[in-house]
């Protein structure tokens, strides 16, 4: 008898566990969807002016493969047409079209969650050839200059090369002729490029990056730095001074590989501004966009795909089975009486609009008034259905009067009762009356207290946002809830109330 139920529970638990593991391990869902994560909000705003009719503005934009997860992108393009394009490792937004003589504003806004460490960029790049502008002679020169460090490990080599920007060439110093030639090269190509050539000569994979410091800031220009791969991770180099940024400094790259982050043809940007602000959001929101775009089966069948106006309902609905489980526990393990089985759950759902204390207060008020009227009505000898209808009308009248009083007192909660399920109130009044008549007022109040307790617990459960989100992200948790319900269905032990009830037996036996 017991075994099939236990097996069913085990299967349900396993299903739940399997689905969740699949999502976490393969689809990379957050294990704790409600743990707060730090995210950045990037806001770019640019004013553009066209020289000719057709203008084209290309701006590097953050994207998910660049180490962070970009969610909630919003782009405005004014009169221009917008295209999003992949250009090498970069994502570029291209605004193009005819803006006329006036200034046009384009903007971009997104929320970026930076992963630590940036996973997709952890792989070392392939060694790149020297830029075409660098001649063979200059390559040989650069290689000569760094040869003495070839025995050092990559981090030390990087530090030695970086120090040359400040003129520190170490011992023994290279000969004067080479140094003179190198400063000429530096002047001709600029320090950043010279540094890149030197890093290439020292076999250190490196690339120029344009972007922003990842701190709360407003910038009107972008930062250029050089990323150098030192065997295990990237180090960031200030190209003008050769300074190596400390690990604690983080960046938001917009374009890598030497492409300028902002390019304009047939016009200019009169003003451009990047604003970075930090915000705390939960992990689920970070994953929200990703799930929405994913093509995996479970992602396509995710509740996140529902139209947003229905999502709220399901966030609540998914928790109702937990409330039912609570009712099972309270009735079958604790032994607390309630009006009806799921009536307290419906009560709790009704309290969503009014809040708990007002909801319970209004409920108690209507039931007391209804009870008094019901006692009096008993003398009128009304048949069952018409009598219940009278009480229903009374309930509606009470709610209406409460709303009017609430309006006078400025209490919105009194007016929000409109959605309180009046049928439940009606049946509660009738049941309360019958219980008090048949089993005494005490029993009636105990039952009312039990119902209020379940309603309160249920209300608190369905309003726990972390729980809501967890169930919303992992609806298969319902299997687990069902498993516990099945197990409770086979609980044949004593109820807590029975320990008290049969305590009387103890002494004489």
């Amino acid at each position: 008898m017991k075994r099939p139920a236990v097996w069913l529970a085990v299967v349900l638990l396993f299903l739940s566990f399997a689905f969740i593991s699949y999502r976490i391990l393969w689809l990379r869902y957050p294990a704790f969807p409600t743990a707060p994560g730090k995210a950045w909000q990037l806001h770019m705003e640019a004013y553009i002016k066209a020289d000719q009719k057709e203008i084209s503005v290309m701006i590097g934009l953050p994207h998910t493969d660049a180490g962070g997860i970009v969610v909630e992108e919003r782009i405005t393009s004014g009169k221009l047409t917008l295209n999003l394009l992949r250009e090498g490792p970069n994502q570029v937004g291209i605004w193009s079209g005819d803006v006329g003589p006036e200034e046009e504003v384009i903007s971009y806004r997104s929320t970026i969650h930076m992963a630590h460490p940036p996973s997709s960029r952890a792989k070392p790049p392939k060694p790149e050839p020297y830029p075409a502008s660098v001649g063979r002679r200059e390559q040989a020169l650069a290689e000569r200059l760094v040869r003495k460090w070839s025995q050092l490990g990559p981090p030390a080599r990087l530090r030695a090369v970086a120090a040359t920007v400040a003129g520190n060439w170490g011992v023994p110093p290279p000969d004067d002729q080479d140094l003179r030639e190198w400063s000429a090269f530096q002047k001709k190509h600029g320090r950043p490029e010279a540094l890149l050539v030197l890093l290439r000569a020292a076999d250190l994979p490196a690339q120029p990056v344009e972007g922003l410091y990842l701190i709360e800031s407003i910038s009107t220009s972008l930062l250029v730095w050089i990323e150098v791969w030192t065997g295990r991770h990237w180090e960031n180099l200030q190209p003008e001074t050769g300074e190596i940024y400390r690990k604690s400094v983080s960046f938001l790259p917009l374009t890598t590989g030497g492409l300028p982050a902002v390019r304009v043809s047939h016009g200019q940007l009169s003003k451009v501004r990047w604003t970075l602000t930090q915000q705390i959001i939960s992990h689920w929101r970070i994953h929200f966009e990703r799930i929405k775009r994913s093509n995996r089966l479970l992602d396509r069948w995710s509740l996140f795909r529902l139209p947003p106006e229905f999502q709220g309902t399901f966030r609540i609905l998914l928790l109702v089975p937990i409330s039912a489980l609570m009712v099972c526990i309270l009735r079958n393990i604790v032994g607390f009486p309630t009006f009806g089985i799921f009536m307290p759950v419906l009560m709790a759902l009704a309290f969503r609009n009014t809040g708990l204390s007002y909801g319970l207060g209004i409920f108690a008020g209507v039931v007391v008034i209804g009870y008094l009227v019901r006692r009096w009505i008993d003398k009128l000898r009304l048949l069952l259905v018409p009598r219940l209808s009278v009480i229903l009308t009374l309930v509606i009248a009470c709610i209406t009067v409460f709303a009017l009083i609430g309006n006078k007192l400025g209490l919105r909660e009194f007016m929000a009762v409109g959605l309180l399920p009046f049928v439940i109130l009606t049946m509660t009044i009738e049941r309360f009356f019958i219980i008090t008549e048949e089993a005494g007022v005490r029993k009636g109040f105990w039952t009312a207290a039990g119902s209020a307790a379940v309603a309160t617990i249920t209300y608190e459960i369905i309003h726990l946002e972390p729980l809501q989100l967890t169930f919303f992200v992992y609806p298969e948790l319902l299997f687990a809830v069902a498993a516990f319900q099945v197990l409770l269905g086979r609980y044949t032990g004593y109820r807590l109330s029975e320990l008290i009830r049969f305590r009387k037996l103890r002494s004489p036996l």
Partner: protein
Amino acid sequence: MIFKVTRWLKDVGILGMNRRNAEYIMRCNPRSSFPLVDDKLLTKRLAEEQQIPTPPLYHTIEYHGDIARLKKVLDGQRDFVVKPARGAGGSGIVLVTDHTSEGFVKQSGEVISWKDLTYHISDILSGIYSLEGLEDRVLLEALVHPDPIFDAVSYRGVPDIRIIVYRGVPVMGMVRLPTRASDGKANLHRGAIGVGIDIGKGKTLTGVHRSRIVTYHPDTGNPVSGLQVPYWESMLLMAARAVDMTGMGYLGVDMVIDWERGPLLLELNARPGLQIQIANQMGLHRRLELIDRAPSDIFSTPKVRVAWAVEKFKVSDF
């Protein structure tokens, strides 16, 4: 503390609500048989077929329109009982002992008018007392005049005797004594006293009143224990036979003792309460397990089953 008490209840063999529902009611009582016991009219007809005596039926009312004819039916009857066919726990039952010019005198002495009575009957018909709120029928039965043995320990009303029967074997019995609080009704949750009965001899044991153990009736002050229940042996047999006709494995059989007609079957209860354990100072579970371990030949006839129960469950030989 909790574990100690749980352990102790288990050792004593107390049956809890959850186990009763899952392992006895749900396992032994087929759903299809429930209407037979939930509807008193069906139970009555079934009992008549088996020649098990029940209180004489005067009339049944099925439709609101029938109420008009009520006056004629009740004309010759001084006292009678109004009962919903599908009522639970004694709700909706009115005992009428007499007529006066103002109306009917209830068992409690209260007088209700003709209008009150018809109102009550139409309430029953609308299903207010029925188990699922379905439309119901009304039984008008002869009022039982109880055997005087319990007069000293009842406050008005009719005491009744409940015997729990498992697989046809009587397990435990108690007599339910009305009190002032129970309005003449013999239902424990309304405040009646339950007094355990020794299966062996039919002598009353201790009483339970609202989950307190009592030895005296709260209204009459007389001791409730040590009374000899008349017709005990034949009532055990009646209970064992009554169960056979329903196909149910776990039943509460409610009987009354009329001083003229002897024991009568009142109703069957597919969900008998657990309070009987307190009245008997004894756990049901232990006895139920004894029956499950018993050799199969004891189940052959009601007589054999009763004999086995008397032998196994007798309290002592005093």
